[in-house]
């Protein structure tokens, strides 16, 4: 995966950073900014984070606020829920989305439902950071793209940073949310780098973003699929096709308006998903466009999704299982006829 181009915000100074650096900067700022914030999870402290995101934070903030948890996803996510109810602002890290399934009970049955079951008395201002997606040949128990499952659940906010600015800024916004926010960080992006404004800060979590303007087709992506989609858009430009790229940024609540407005301009829709096609997050996007903007479509919707197989270990099979830029190019060319 190549470095993700970032639209530089207005302002003079940028610096070259990795996604790992950007996430860490967000964490450091959160810990420094509010005494109630603490980080808890497997290997986050002494080890420095399984993906080295939290390196140095234990030394900087101490063991009370950077807490190494046992391998007990359900207990430490549940404890994060209790701590959030109790007046602190926990950031819980789960090592990978496949492990998050061990905490599914706490996330779905408690974090997402306590406000409702209590008639509005209990909010759960919890942030859970969850590495997700393929890209490092980690095979079928460390590579899946399951954020769509969580996006199914009312009461949760599900965000998927795909740019350095979002990686840097989503945590700060998430911490202001009085409800649980799940931040799905792309494993494949951690080591990639790009330019980030030195004054980058909190970002909007409510609106999808048009990452590249275009006139011929709307290509919708999020998280790990944004980089190949932007690469595809570049290739399409070389073939005279102008693709507009929409980054959803959040899977719940889903900003349908931005997608529909784009489709109203381009009249073609291509959706791209690292998740499996059946019941994947993009199925909802397509359904909403069908509900709200069917008349705007001049061609059948094109869906580019992961092959319905557990993600395999060998590099060539992993790549074959996942949407590539070439797949997006082919689908968009079909759409524009």
């Amino acid at each position, binding site marked *: 995966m190549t470095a993700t181009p970032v639209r530089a915000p207005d302002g003079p100074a940028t610096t070259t950073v990795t996604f790992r650096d950007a996430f860490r900067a967000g964490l450091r700022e959160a810990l420094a900014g509010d005494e109630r914030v603490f980080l808890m999870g497997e290997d986050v402290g002494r080890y420095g984070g399984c993906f080295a995101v939290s390196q140095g934070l234990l030394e900087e903030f101490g063991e009370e606020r950077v807490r190494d*948890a*046992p391998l007990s996803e359900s*207990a*430490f996510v*549940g*404890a994060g829920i*209790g701590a959030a*109810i109790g007046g602190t602002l926990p950031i819980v890290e789960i090592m990978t989305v496949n492990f998050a399934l061990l905490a599914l009970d706490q996330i779905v049955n408690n974090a997402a439902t306590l406000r409702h079951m209590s*008639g509005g008395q209990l909010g759960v201002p919890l942030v859970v950071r969850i590495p997700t997606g393929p890209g490092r040949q980690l095979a079928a128990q460390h590579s899946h793209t399951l954020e769509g499952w969580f996006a199914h659940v009312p009461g949760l906010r599900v965000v998927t940073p795909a740019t350095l600015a979002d990686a840097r800024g989503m945590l700060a916004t998430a911490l202001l949310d009085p409800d649980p926010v799940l931040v799905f960080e792309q494993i494949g992006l951690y080591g990639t780098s790009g330019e980030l404004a030195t004054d980058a800060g909190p970002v909007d979590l409510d609106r999808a973003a048009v990452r590249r303007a275009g006139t011929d087709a709307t290509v919708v992506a999020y998280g790990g699929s944004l980089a190949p989609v932007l690469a595809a858009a570049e290739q399409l430009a070389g073939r005279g096709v102008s693709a507009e790229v929409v980054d959803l940024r959040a899977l719940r609540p889903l900003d349908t308006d931005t997608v529909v407005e784009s489709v109203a301009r381009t009249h073609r829709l291509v959706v791209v998903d690292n998740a499996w096609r059946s019941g994947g997050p993009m199925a909802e996007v397509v359904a909403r466009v069908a509900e709200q903007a069917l008349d705007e479509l001049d061609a059948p919707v094109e869906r580019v999704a992961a092959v319905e197989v557990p993600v395999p270990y060998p590099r060539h099979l992993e790549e074959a299982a996942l949407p590539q830029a070439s797949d997006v190019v082919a689908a968009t060319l079909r759409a524009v006829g």
Partner: protein
Amino acid sequence: MSGADDPLALFTTMLRVRRFEERCVELYSAAAIRGFMHLCIGEEAVAAGVIGALAADDAVVSTYREHGHALARGIPMPSVFAEMFGRVTGCSRGRGGSMHLFDASRRFYGGNAIVAGGIPVAVGLALADRLLHRSHVSACLFGDGAVAEGEFHESLNLAALWHLPVVFCCENNQYAMGTSLARTHAETDLALRAGSYGLRSWSVDGMDAVAVRAATRLAVDTARAGGGPCFLELRTYRFRAHSMYDADRYRERAEIDAWLERDPVERLAAVLAADGTLDEPGRTALEEAVTREIDEAVGLAEAGPPEPVADLSRYVTAEAGR
């Protein structure tokens, strides 16, 4: 709240819980209460004893068999009935029902219907207290069935590892739904198992409210003083089935009768009668007062309005969002 020291307060709490639930049976039969309903008749000493040992600002996390815990904690009876009737005046605005009683103002955090699901939440409440330098204790009530769940073991390990002020109160009524402890646990000595995580643990006669309160006090004092989490196994019995849907075919009559002999309400009544605290006229007057309280509470609850359907989508996320 029934935090007073005298046994008469314990008895009053138990009597309110017993008569409350007996009325619930009638209301359920009349279809005023629907859904799953789990009664704690027979287990009142745990409710009165555990809650009676807590301070007002300690936290309570409970299960789906929580009517007794909620009443003992001081949640007003009309709002509990209203909750079970699904009225907006219920303690959870009628959105939870019997299994999800909540009262944030009394630090009563459910009402959890996922077995063991509340245990890590109690650990987190204690963690927050630690981080915010408060001297509260979190009491977590759950059944013996929860001890078979992974979350129980993960949570005890975490609380002991971090030395958090949690009192784990296992209401051991001998049955996980319809299956006995002996059929589901390789080691049935629950205090022994909890103790293996390095926390102090005791087994207590859960049919003796005075003993339950004394043991809980010791555990709460230990946790509050920085002694780390504690575990209490409270050996009790539910006189009724697991839920209103349960035909209760799995228990021998002789076993039930043996436990009925140890009825916690009548047992404490006998003690109070023997020492002259509560004579026959006193008992009668108390019964009448409880009946009046229940009658009035049912009347108030029935008068409560249902929530407008227009509000269906509220309380999913914070208001003024999304």
